[in-house]
C-alpha cells in the first residue's frame, strides 16, 4: 500500500467515525430526538465550534503554554536526575544493592497517590504538577541509563581497554554514549509520561492547563468542553511526539534500524 492510499484510509476512518457520531447525536429520529442524547455525548459540530472558539478567542494558548511548561520541566528535571543516579548506581554496585529495595518500592507506588501530597508541598501552581511528572520520568530514564551502562558489550569494553582507555576515557567514549542511547530510545515514553504527569496533576487541582480545562468542563456538565479538551490534548501530544521523533532521528544516526537484521 503506498503512502497516499494509506493516508486516504486513515482519513476515511476519521470521516466514518465523525459521521457516525453526528448521525447518532445530531440527527433527530422519528420521535424527534436523536438516538443518543447529545447531553452525554455532545455532537461533532458543538465540539469543533468549541475548539474554534478557544483558538479564535485565544484563551487556549495560556493553558497549552502552562501544560507545555510543566511537561518540559518534568522531562528535563526527571531526565537529568535519572541519568545521574542511573550512572552512579551502575558504576557503584554496592550503592545500587543498598538502594535496590527502595527503588523498587518507589517505582511500585502508583504515582497518582503522591499528587495530593505534592499539592500540599508545592501548592496549586505548576510545581506540584512538575513534581508528579518528575516521579514518572525519573524512573523510566533511571532504569534505561542503569541498563545502558551495565549492558555495554563486554567485547566493546575489552576493546576499549586494549586501545588504552583509562577510566575517564571509558566513561566518555563507552559508558556515556551507551547510556544516552538507551535513554533516547525511551524518549517517547518519558516525554509521554511527562505530559501525563502534568495533565493528571492539573486534573487533580490547579488553576490553569489542559487538565484544568477538562476538569472545569466536567464540573459544569459541559460535555462539548470535555471532548474539545481531549481533542486539543491529543493533538498536543501528537505534535510533541513528532518533535521527539525528529530529535531522535538526529541523535541516533548511528543506530541500526529495527528492520536491519545484521547483528
Amino acid at each position, binding site marked *: 500500500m503506498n503512502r497516499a492510499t494509506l493516508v486516504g484510509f486513515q482519513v476515511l476512518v476519521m470521516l466514518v467515525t465523525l459521521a457516525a457520531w453526528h448521525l447518532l447525536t445530531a440527527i433527530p429520529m422519528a420521535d424527534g430526538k436523536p438516538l443518543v442524547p447529545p447531553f452525554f455525548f455532545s455532537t461533532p459540530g458543538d465540539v469543533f465550534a468549541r475548539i474554534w472558539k478557544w483558538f479564535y478567542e485565544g484563551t487556549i494558548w495560556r493553558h497549552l503554554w502552562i501544560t507545555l511548561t510543566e511537561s518540559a520541566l518534568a522531562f528535563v528535571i526527571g531526565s537529568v536526575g535519572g541519568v545521574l543516579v542511573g550512572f552512579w548506581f551502575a558504576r557503584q554496585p554496592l550503592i545500587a544493592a543498598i538502594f535496590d529495595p527502595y527503588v523498587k518500592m518507589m517505582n511500585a507506588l502508583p504515582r497518582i497517590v503522591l499528587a495530593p501530597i505534592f499539592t500540599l508541598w508545592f501548592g496549586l501552581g505548576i510545581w506540584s504538577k512538575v513534581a508528579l511528572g518528575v516521579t514518572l520520568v525519573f524512573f523510566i530514564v533511571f532504569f534505561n541509563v542503569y541498563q545502558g551502562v551495565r549492558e555495554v558489550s563486554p*567485547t566493546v569494553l*575489552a576493546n576499549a581497554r*586494549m586501545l588504552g*582507555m583509562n577510566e575517564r576515557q571509558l566513561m566518555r567514549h563507552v559508558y556515556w554514549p551507551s547510556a544516552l542511547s538507551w535513554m533516547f530510545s525511551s524518549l517517547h515514553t518519558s516525554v509521554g509520561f511527562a505530559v501525563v504527569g502534568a495533565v493528571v496533576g492539573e486534573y487533580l487541582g490547579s488553576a490553569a492547563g489542559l487538565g484544568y480545562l477538562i476538569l472545569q468542563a466536567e464540573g459544569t456538565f459541559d460535555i462539548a468542553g470535555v471532548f474539545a479538551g481531549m481533542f486539543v490534548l491529543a493533538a498536543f501530544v501528537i505534535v510533541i511526539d513528532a518533535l521527539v521523533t525528529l530529535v531522535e532521528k538526529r541523535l541516533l544516526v*548511528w543506530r541500526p534500524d529495527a528492520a536491519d537484521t545484521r547483528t
Partner: protein
Amino acid sequence: MGGPTADAMPAGTKSVTAAVALNDVTITFRMGKGVTYTAVSDATLSVADGEFVAIVGPTGCGKSTLLNVAAGLLAPSSGSAEIFGSPLSDLNRQAGYLFQADSLFPWKTALQNVAIGLETAGTPAGPARQRAQEWLQRVGLAGFAGRYPHMLSGGQRKRVGLAQVLIRDPKILLMDEPFGPLDAQTRQIMGNLLLDLWSADRKAVLFVTHDLEEAIALSDRVVIMSAGPAARIIGDWRVPLARPRDISDVKLDKAFHDLHREIWNVLKDEVLKGYAQTGGG
C-alpha cells in the same frame, strides 16, 4: 624451511627476547558451589619478535582463553606470562587485540573508530583523524570514513577493526578468530590484507583459529591444542612456505598439503573429542 628467519628461531625455543612467552599457564574458572573448570592446563608457548604464530584447536579448547592471558585481560591461575622479558601483571600495553565478535564502537563513525586509539594515547584530534584517514585508505575503506559500523558489511567492519588496532603500532598483535564470521572469499581477501600489512613491519602475531588451512597459509608456526577441558599444547610445527605468500596460491603448494595432512592426523582425534564433548556444537 621457509625464510632465513625460520632457521634462526627453532620451534618451541624460549628465547630471552620472546615477544610473548607463556610459561606453564593453567587457567581454572570457578563456576560457583565449589565446582571448577580447568580450561587450559600447563601451556607453554613463545612467540619471537616478528614471528607469526597460529594456535589451532577444536571448538571450546580454550584458545581464546590463552589469548586473553597474553592480552592481560585474564590472569592465569598458575604459571606466568612474559612480554618482551618482563612479567605481565596488568593489561598488555604492547599488544593490539582483534576480537572475534564485533568490537567497534557503534556510536562512532569508521574514521572516529580508527582515530580513537591514537586519541586515547594523547594525539590531538586533528592529526589523529588524518592518520586514521590514511589507515582507512590502507585497508581499502577510504570512501567509508563517515559510515557507522552498522552501515558496513562484516568484512568492512573487520577492516576498520584492523586499522583501529594497527594505527597504534603495537609490537604484538593478538587475533581471536578475527575472520571467523566472514564468508570464504572475504576471509581469503582479509588474510592477504593482513599478510600485506604485517609484512610492512613484522610484528609478533598470535593468531587463534579453528581453521587449519587458514593457520598454515598465514603463519610461520602452527601450534595445536588438544580438546578441552584442561586443554594442552600437543604439537608445534614450522611452516616451510616462502614469503611473501598469496593465500589462494599457497594452498596449491605441495608442502602445504603435506603439512596439512601431517597436522590433521594429530588434530583429527582432538576435533572428534571436542565434538563429543560439546555435542557437535
